[in-house]
């Protein structure tokens, strides 16, 4: 077996970043050095993915290859690296006050990025599942990684979120592995391009295997009815980690699903998951009063739209990928604004805590409107609008009009809570029941204007500019994916 080392460069860069971060922490034990090394490594990973680009597959045994650089893999590797660096920027305020140990945090995050980079390139089920697990494993710890200052009220929310996530995730991996095993037993295929529908007496076994694979991966994207872990886990995790869970981790699940649905016919399962996911996600989000829970349910609903495109099989892959990229970008901005509006290392809080925040921080408010309107599929940013159009277009093109109708109606339900949470950012302070001199002063005391850390601001600016730019030129994304 010959291995083309150049083709593997993105993987080397990603895993090199993890090792580098570990060594930096070990040798210098300086937070700044570790973070800078991580950021540089992340950017190098994205750059190497772009530079190496689409090349012949490697790690081949005969005709079967395990490392397949496709346009989708390249784009997603860049996305993973960018999201990781972004999440690093979002966590810089809490690293600064020591809410999480910088060295461990950075190493785990870098390890997770390595797993993400692998998923897109994976050419066989083993590599795929190993990549997915490498992406998820560090997150079990990251979700619960929270140090409390002396005197600070200690919360076990992170630890219990971590346990929830761990248990569900392990079960889902077991299911996916069982699926892979059954499929292998029936068809003998482990490489993705050899996946075929089973025939003969072993056909049902292969079909069960395929369905189990989809179900196992559906856990990762938090598809209903396999979603129950997501809201408590997001809520208990530190905000930047919740951002990572709902963007990069979700992207990993989508990529794993892409690998299966584009080769095996599992349309009925995926379509059913899609309808359930978007409808349940949106309906439950309507009643949420906690910010992160609302975002969690909204991201469940959004996963439903991606699943709707994936129900089309290979024809829907591009639409699903485009939607996923737009979604993670907008979701990242939304989480970034939440991080910027909250004190360092705090949780997402109630919606009430955000009352009038858009008036205190006009630019953060603008970024929030851009992100949330986009998630609702509406301008001013065109990214979300094109995402919606792309998915509906693909569905109608393949004759799935009824599913397009579901997507469209869900967009209306979704807008109800997106509007509610956004309007809350712009309401004027209520007049308190008791006589006070100035309601504005009272509001300023209960809802202080917090300074925004530079790293968070930079991450938000870059993400917002990217979202606006790619909204105007979505063809760039379509071209990158084909």
């Amino acid at each position, binding site marked *: 077996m010959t291995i083309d080392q150049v083709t593997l460069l993105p993987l080397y860069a990603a895993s090199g970043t993890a090792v580098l971060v570990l060594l930096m922490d070990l040798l210098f034990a300086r937070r700044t050095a570790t973070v800078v090394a991580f950021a540089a490594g992340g950017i190098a990973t994205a750059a190497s993915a772009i530079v190496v680009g689409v090349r012949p597959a490697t790690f081949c045994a005969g005709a079967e290859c395990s490392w397949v650089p496709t346009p989708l893999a390249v784009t997603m590797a860049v996305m993973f690296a960018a999201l990781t660096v972004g999440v690093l920027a979002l966590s810089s305020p809490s690293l600064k006050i020591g809410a999480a140990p910088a060295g461990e945090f950075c190493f785990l995050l870098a390890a997770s990025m390595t797993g993400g980079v692998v998923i897109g390139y994976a050419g066989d089920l083993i590599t795929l599942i190993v990549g997915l697990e490498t992406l998820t494993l560090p997150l079990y710890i990251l979700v619960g990684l929270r140090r409390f200052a002396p005197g600070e009220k200690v919360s076990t929310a992170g630890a219990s979120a971590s346990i929830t996530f761990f248990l569900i995730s392990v079960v889902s991996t077991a299911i996916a592995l069982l699926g892979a095993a059954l499929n292998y037993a029936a068809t003998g295929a482990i490489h993705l391009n050899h996946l075929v529908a089973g025939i003969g007496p072993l056909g049902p076994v292969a079909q069960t295997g395929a369905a189990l694979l989809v179900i196992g991966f559906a856990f990762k994207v938090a598809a209903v009815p396999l979603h129950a872990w997501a809201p408590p886990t997001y809520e208990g995790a530190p905000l930047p980690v919740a951002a990572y869970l709902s963007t990069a981790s979700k992207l990993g699940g989508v990529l794993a699903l892409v690998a299966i649905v584009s080769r095996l016919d599992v349309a009925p399962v995926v379509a059913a998951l899609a309808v359930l996911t978007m409808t349940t996600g949106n309906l439950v989000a309507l009643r949420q009063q906690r910010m992160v829970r609302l975002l969690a349910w909204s991201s469940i609903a959004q996963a439903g739209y991606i699943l709707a495109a994936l129900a089309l099989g290979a024809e829907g892959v591009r639409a699903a990928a485009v939607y996923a990229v737009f979604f993670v970008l907008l979701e990242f901005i939304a989480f970034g604004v939440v991080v910027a509006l909250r004190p360092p290392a705090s949780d997402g809080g109630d919606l009430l805590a955000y009352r009038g925040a858009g008036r205190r921080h006009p630019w953060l408010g*603008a970024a929030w409107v851009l992100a949330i*309107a986009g998630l609702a599929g*509406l*301008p*001013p940013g*065109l990214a979300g*609008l*094109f995402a*919606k*159009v*792309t998915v*509906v*277009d693909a569905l*109608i*093109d393949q004759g799935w*009009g009824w599913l*397009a*109708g579901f997507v*469209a*109606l869900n*967009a*209306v339900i979704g*807008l*109800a809570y997106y*509007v*509610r949470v956004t*309007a809350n950012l*712009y309401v004027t302070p209520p007049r308190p029941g008791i006589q006070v001199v100035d309601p504005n002063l009272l509001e300023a005391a209960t809802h202080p204007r917090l300074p925004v850390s530079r790293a968070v601001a930079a991450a938000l600016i870059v993400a917002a500019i990217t979202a606006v730019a790619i909204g105007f030129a*979505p*063809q760039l994304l*379509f071209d990158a994916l084909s």
Partner: protein
Amino acid sequence: MNDVYQVMLVAAVALPAAGAALLSVLPIRFAGPTATGFAAAALIPIIVLPFGHDRGWATYAADPPTVSPWAELDLSWVPALHLHFHLGVDGVSYPLVALTGLLTLLCCAYTMWRPPAGGSPRTLLGLLLILEAGILGTFLSLDLILFFLFFEVTLLPMYAVIAGWGGEDRRRAARKFVLYTLFGSVLLLIGVLTVAVHAGTADIVALTGGIGLSKGTQYAAFALFAVAFAVKAPLWPLHSWLPDAHTQAPTVGSVILAGVLLKMGTYGLIRVGVGVTPLGARWAAPLLGILAVAAILAGALICLKQTELKRLIAYSSVGHMGFVLLGIATLTTTGIQAALLGNVAHGLITGLLFFLAGAIKDRAHTGDLADLGGLRETAPRLAGLLGFAAIASLGLPGLAGFWGEAFAVVAAVERGGVLWTILAVLAAIGGALTAAYFLRLLRKVTHGPVGTPVSPAIAGVEWFAWAPLVALTLAVGLVPTLVLAATSLPVEALIR
């Protein structure tokens, strides 16, 4: 195609958008003049565009293309979604484009001098400019997906205008508005993509006449279009968002909403519904006609019972849009021309009515008809203007409102058959009821004993905002060819 006109097409959409962007970074004290300046600047391309018209005649051939815009710009934007940045203007869209430019300018100037209570006037001005860009884009689009895109652009700004500067119950009204209209626009999305996927193009010029679409596709697409535009227009029974939105919206919001935003629905029905899916339109015409007449009668009957000034005017819009839709439903040249004229007339007259209602409410601090009264004694000029607008709205011959409503009825009679004759008779009865409720409005507000005293002074900016509308109402009433001059060819092409 001459380059100047292409630049002008882009400028018409880009200038307001650029103005809105600039507003967000300028200090607040420059906001008023900047916004008004950009709104005025956007009128320049709008004034220049008709000069491109003459070139259209030169290319007149034995078999002219279905849509022959005076000026056209076609750039590929997102090939993967069949999306072209395809703008153009012709006789069908131009009157509405001009109306949009005019009303936005008036509203910006009005806001500059009379900022409504609520959020910062700078944001309101920015939103008005974004609305203008979205509405102009909708009227100028010659690509279905681009049309949808601009259609969506107007959604959230209008929500924000109502929710930020509205009355007591503004948030509920704004939410109702945005959810209703988004429901309409997602149906539009499905319809638009159905057409684009089946025809392999989204170019309105290529698609007009239903070329390349099977009968079944046209039926399905028209059903989607009809509901989508019926929500926007709004057509009875999908109108229930409208009274709340109008009652709660600030004056300028009501003016834009009634004056041009609703027209996106009727314009879309003509351009996209009738133009792209003619078989579907023919199939659904009787139903549309029945609903239109139901809207006329329901609107008029509800108006007779209204006790609030703005709510009454809002419900009168339901009736007027009913006439416009009746005109469209006949699918005759007369009917569609009546609809186009009715659109413009309603924009002018209802715009004026909402300005006046806002002025009365600002002065009297109440919009309740029971508390108003004797306006002709306390504020004779205001009473005179209100009388003029109300009489124009009820369709007095010689004023703008007459032509659209009368010829919608005429078109229905011309169409012939039992159904259409009955519809014409009922619509005419509805017209009489319209007169009844407007006269009742005048009796309650201008006549009778003085209810709430109203200061008679009319500020300069109010004259500035009202005078063009009064003048145009008169002008269009006397010379309807102002609007219809260039419509006969495109309309005939549309229904051929």
